[in-house]
Structures are given as structure tokens and as C-alpha cells.
């Protein structure tokens, strides 16, 4: 089914997107729903985007639930390993 759920958050950083260009990103949406490309009925989808740059200014991920949890853990592990005074 389409889950309809969408979690949004503001982000601050850069992403490499269409045509190999880097761009500033301001928003992320996270949802578990049908993928466009991944071979699974549902995936955890992440769009990191610059809405001001139009709909194509985004980097999209479609991950299995297991892969998404592994990625979330890896992100946390990477941050935990960094001295606190380096984190912004």
C-alpha cells in the first residue's frame, strides 16, 4: 500500500545531484513507501533537497528497511567517534 506517512526535517549541507553538480540542501523528507527503482515492494526513501532549486534539485535514496537501519546506525557511529568540539 501507499503509506502516506512522510517525516520532514530541515537540513544544512550539500549534496551532489543531477548532472554531477553539488548544491546546497535545506530539506529532507523520509518515508517508507513504494520505490521508483529499488527491487522491493516498499523501501525507506530519503529525499535530500533544495526546494528553492525546483523539484529536480534533490538526491534520492531507496533503501530496504534493514539497509536503512544500518545506515542510521552508521551515521550515529560516525558521529559518536568524533570529538564533541568538532561537531556543529
Amino acid at each position, binding site marked *: 500500500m501507499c503509506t502516506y506517512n*512522510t517525516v520532514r526535517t530541515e537540513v544544512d549541507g550539500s549534496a551532489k545531484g543531477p548532472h554531477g553538480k553539488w548544491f546546497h540542501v535545506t530539506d529532507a523528507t523520509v518515508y517508507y513507501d513504494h520505490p521508483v527503482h529499488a527491487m522491493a515492494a516498499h523501501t525507506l526513501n530519503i529525499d535530500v533537497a533544495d526546494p528553492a532549486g525546483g523539484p529536480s534539485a534533490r538526491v534520492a535514496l531507496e533503501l530496504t528497511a534493514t539497509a536503512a537501519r544500518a545506515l542510521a546506525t552508521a551515521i550515529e557511529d560516525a558521529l559518536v567517534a568524533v570529538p564533541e568540539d568538532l561537531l556543529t
Partner: protein
Amino acid sequence: MSDNLSAQTIRITGQHGEEIEAYLATPAGEASRGGVVVIHHMPGYDRASKEITRRFAELGYDALCPNLHWREAPGAAPDDAAAAARARGGVPDDRLVGDVDGAVEKLRALPTSNGKVGVIGYCSGGRQSVLVACSLPVDAAVDCYGAFVTGEPPEGMPISGNIVDRLPDLRCPLLGLFGNEDRYPSPEHVDELEQILKANGKDFEFHRYDGAGHGFFAVDREMYRVAAANDGWERIESFFARTLGD
């Protein structure tokens, strides 16, 4: 039926008189015929939805698929437009009905129209197809595994509940095609829908497929189930021949 057809992108008038994009596929020739509005799934106004639209033209109908994400992302790639629409909260029910109303009127205004128009939707579009059939003067509706026509959305889901209270307003025959391995809608959800339609004396026809879950018509996805999809297309063909023919 002929494979001699044409397809093009056009503009139609949607809700509040706003112009939106739509994909029109028409059989060759001037013979009088019915029309079909194809409601695309949540992943967007994509190649698969347009292929379905062309198939209805091959079956002898004027077929029109409105781009429900046009307002959020005019001219964008379908996947980008779907993401943009989702980030802004999705397609509201009233806007959906307004846009499909515009598509229905466009089909009825074609010189080939016999005045009859049906609607079909897949996944989220299945629910929307039933909603349209409860809201607009269409002649037939097909619900392909639409969730939350009945049944309660899980807590926290932003969808505005099921549409059980709208079902007494269903004004045309309804064909429902469901996979028995689907959880939304589950076989129990389909049972509930069947009971409500029976209690209200509605004209409906349901087919349920073993070995199939959600999305079994989607040829480009893992959920594709060829036996269910092939039988489903035959059911659709017979249903529209009965309800949209001259």
C-alpha cells in the same frame, strides 16, 4: 479493438479552473466510444501510468491520465514531481476530485464521446477511484487494490480516514480487483467493503487473487503477478464493455 492509436500531452482544466497537464491516448477513427480516466499511483504520472492509458486506447476508449502532481512540479520528471508533492503533504481529496472532474468533462467533450466515462485507479488511485465514483457522475469505476476505502489507517498516518461514510453515494457499477496477500487492503477490508456495498444495494463485482499481493498489475515492480494481472485485465475489459459501450 485496434493498435492504431495516437497519444499526446495536453492541458485540461482542473479544480478551481486551474490548468493542469494530462496524457491523452485515443484510438484512430471517428467511431463513437466511451472514455476512461486513469488515476496514476502515488509514485506519479510515470511511464507505467502512460502505458496503461495507451492500453485503454488500444481497447477502444479515449483515455486520459491527469498529472495530479502538476501544481507542485510543472514539467518535472515524474519521480521528482511525486517527491515534491509528497513533501508538501500529498494530493488532497477535494483537489483530486476536482482534477478528475476536469478530465471527465474533457473526455465527454471529445467529438468521439458516447457520453460515458469510467475511472480506474491503482494503489492510492484505487481509493481515489472509489471516491470519484461517490462524488461525480461517472458511469463505471475500477478499484485496483486501493487501501483505506474501508479499514482504519494506522495511527499517525496523515490520510483523512477511510471513505466508508461516502459509500452510500456510490453512483455507478464498481469493479474491485484485490490480492489475497495484500495487507492494505486486507481480505478483511475487502470483506467489509463487500458487505457495505451489498447492504446499500450497489452494483459491484469483486475478484480476489491468490498468490498476489499489492500492486500486482505493476509490470516494472517486484509485486507483478502475471496470472492475476492477465485475469484482471480481462475483467476490466469485460466490465468497461458492459458499462461504457454504446
